[in-house]
């Protein structure tokens, strides 16, 4: 079976390093002839995925990102070796609950990723997390 072409990136946990990932995704999106809108959505989701990996995984090890190119879609895996998390325990944020209350204003990353990508999946345990997110080439897929 033909293996899908894959671009692999290793990011150290340094400030704003998520932008390196977006530069790569821009190039991959152009190669796949994705629209500017889809490319921007992928970049935004990738920024949030990287920030989650950098900040919440509590890992000091590098983050790995795989861009898997197929005829139908782009699949991105963001892999950290951190403490893991239970996505089902995370409450989706609502701005109405955050304004005028002591609730922390942050916590939007997962919601943004889910809204901006076509498919999102997490595999997580106490040895790390793999976030897999997919953007279809066609809007109706």
């Amino acid at each position: 079976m033909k293996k899908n072409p894959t671009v692999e990136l290793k990011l150290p946990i340094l400030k704003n390093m998520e932008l390196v990932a977006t530069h790569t995704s821009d190039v991959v999106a152009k190669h796949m002839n994705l629209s500017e809108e889809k490319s921007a959505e992928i970049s935004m989701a990738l920024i949030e995925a990287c920030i989650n990996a950098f900040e919440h995984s509590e890992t000091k090890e590098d983050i790995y990102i795989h861009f898997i190119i197929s005829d139908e879609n782009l699949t991105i895996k963001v892999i950290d070796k951190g403490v893991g998390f239970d996505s089902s325990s995370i409450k989706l944020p609502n701005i109405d609950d955050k304004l005028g209350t002591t609730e922390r204003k942050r916590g939007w990353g997962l919601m943004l990723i889910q809204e901006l990508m076509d498919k999102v999946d997490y595999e997580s345990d106490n040895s790390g997390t793999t976030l897999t997110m997919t953007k279809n080439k066609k809007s109706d897929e």
Partner: protein
Amino acid sequence: MSKIIDKNVKNGVVVVSTEGYFNKDLGEALKEITDQEIKEGHKNFLINLDQSKIVNSIGASILIEIIEELQVVDGSLNFCNLAPIIAKTFKIMGLTKYCETFDNEEAALQKLA
């Protein structure tokens, strides 16, 4: 990489222009300005994002803190020249329920000033 490039008061509206990645640093820099201007009695703010084409949720979360502070003084936070992905991000987060967005500075000032 990320900075405030201009701040002016135009017909009572504080217009702040940013450049680069709208991240935590830029959000905090903006909040320093709004905090100071609120102390000086200004209530209405227009943020021109023409030179900021990308945002992250940490920077955007600081905007929620600014909205909260402006609600206390019956003020408003407004934006113009948003890149489509920033407009979409603000909509997903619900920021657009509490902020007005405009195509450009002229259109915004026509309404706000």
